[in-house]
């Protein structure tokens, strides 16, 4: 089964391809320049593998949370590719992707993820690995001030392995919640670690058509004020 995974949700941009049982992948830090990096990266991976879009069984995309614009660049590209090649799609959480990486690379079984969400908040989620070696989410993904995280995670095993950019951004509030002594090894989601989660979702029949590839922003309020009385 052949699948292409794409993520542009954070400062990183990454593409991974599972083609004829081989994995091809690229990852690059490219803040503010996903629009020039992403499609050439996809093209180079497909060319390297000798794969046509029409040979794929589906697309997997980073659905957020992360930078609103970055998430939409990734999803815009996925919508265009999926619609043009008549492929179905599955979205994977960026937080869960980093947790999956912690399991696949460092055999961490419990992970708390925190991405710097600006405006003095973090996107966060708590994950543990299941019998199939896939990270499962425990609490709904949320955005909150770092000081509230300790309360949010009440009842769960803490401290555990931390991933994401949130830890270095708010060390005073967060450092007691993770076991890594220094900065987390895993700071950004990488499409390579979306493959396993995404393929599992395809098997479960969770795939949807191109236009239903949609972001999960987690932060759903805008700072704009409504007119009086609205």
């Amino acid at each position, binding site marked *: 089964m052949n699948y292409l995974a794409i993520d542009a949700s954070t400062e990183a941009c990454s593409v991974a391809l599972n083609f004829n049982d081989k994995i091809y992948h690229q990852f690059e830090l490219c803040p503010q320049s996903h*629009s020039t990096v992403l499609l050439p990266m996809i*093209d180079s991976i497909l060319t390297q593998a000798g794969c046509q879009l029409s040979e794929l069984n589906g697309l997997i995309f980073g659905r957020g949370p992360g930078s609103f614009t970055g998430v939409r*660049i990734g999803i*815009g590209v996925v*919508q265009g590719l999926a*619609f*043009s090649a008549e492929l179905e799609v599955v979205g994977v959480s960026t937080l869960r992707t980093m947790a999956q990486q912690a399991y696949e690379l460092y055999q961490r079984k419990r992970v708390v993820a925190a991405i710097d969400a600006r405006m003095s908040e973090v996107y966060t989620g708590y994950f543990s690995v299941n019998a199939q070696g896939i990270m499962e989410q425990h609490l709904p993904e949320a955005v909150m001030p770092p000081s509230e995280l300790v309360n949010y995670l009440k009842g769960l095993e803490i401290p555990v392995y931390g991933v994401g950019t949130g830890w270095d951004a708010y060390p005073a509030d967060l450092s007691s919640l993770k076991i890594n002594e220094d900065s987390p090894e895993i700071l950004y989601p990488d499409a390579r670690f979306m493959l396993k989660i995404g393929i599992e979702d395809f098997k479960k029949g969770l795939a949807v058509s191109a236009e239903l590839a949609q972001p999960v922003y987690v932060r759903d309020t805008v700072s704009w004020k409504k*007119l009086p009385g609205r």
Partner: protein
Amino acid sequence: MRILGIETSCDETGIAIYDEKEGILAHRLYSQIAVHADYGGVVPELASRDHVRKTIPLIKEVLADAKLTAKDLDGVAYTAGPGLVGALLVGCSIGRSLAYGWNLPAVPVHHMEGHLLAPMLEDDVPDFPFVALLVSGGHTMLVRVDGIGQYELLGESVDDAAGEAFDKTAKLLGLDYPGGPALAKMAETGKKGRFKFPRPMTDRPGLDFSFSGLKTFAANTIHKEEMDKQTHADVAYAFQEAVVDTLAIKCKRALLQCELKRLVIAGGVSANTELRAKLEQITAKLGGKVYYPRPEFCTDNGAMIAYAGMQRLKAGVFADLSFKATPRWPLDTLAAI
């Protein structure tokens, strides 16, 4: 040759298919007015969120309306600027990757070039050269057009766009966003001569505009007066009369300066009936003629992007695999074709 056009630069998702010989085969427009009305203006983040929901469904509809599939297309055009960067990026990313997947050329289009060429979608097409007045909620500019990509900026607004002044004054008159068209409706029952608004920057040479003072003048008038229904209409009348007069004075000046007789008007405000009537009048007096697109192609739309894209496609101007959005992009930096 046929091309798909995608417009997402502000608060409207517009999709169309243009055929070089047969013209527009299908077009659809989704307006986000309801999304932004509660805020009294366009909220960029909400605009982007809506475009990413609506673009592909509209493309499906347009292909179905035209009874076409990707195999019938020769290119994909999308607005690459100017506009709201987040909103632009939705159309750019979808348009560029669609073209990649379909193995077709991708054509980034300048939004204002789209507006400028929109009258070419009508039966009565102006010959080059002509003077164009681009007048919308985001822009007010006079351009000399000698050919596609041959644009000389003659003048523009130094502050608010004319459409912006319409919407802001409408808000002062208690009208919902975007209130421009509602203000024009209100002005129909207004009395001529009760209020006299200034004609900004017409007392000096040059072709620049300034409309923010008119909004302030309206605010002061509303503050001073007992605002009954008739007074609302009278203020609306005087305001619209001042904007229309100011635009007309500058259009006439531009035609005389360029020694041209053809005037093109495009952009949302070019749908205003009083403005059309006034410009018909002044061009007639000069022995010239005014050209404009049908009302649905005055506001943002995909048809004008498909048309402008076709001109660039025929000239072989394609994008590489990147899809940069350019929020600020002067019209006169475009290459001639």
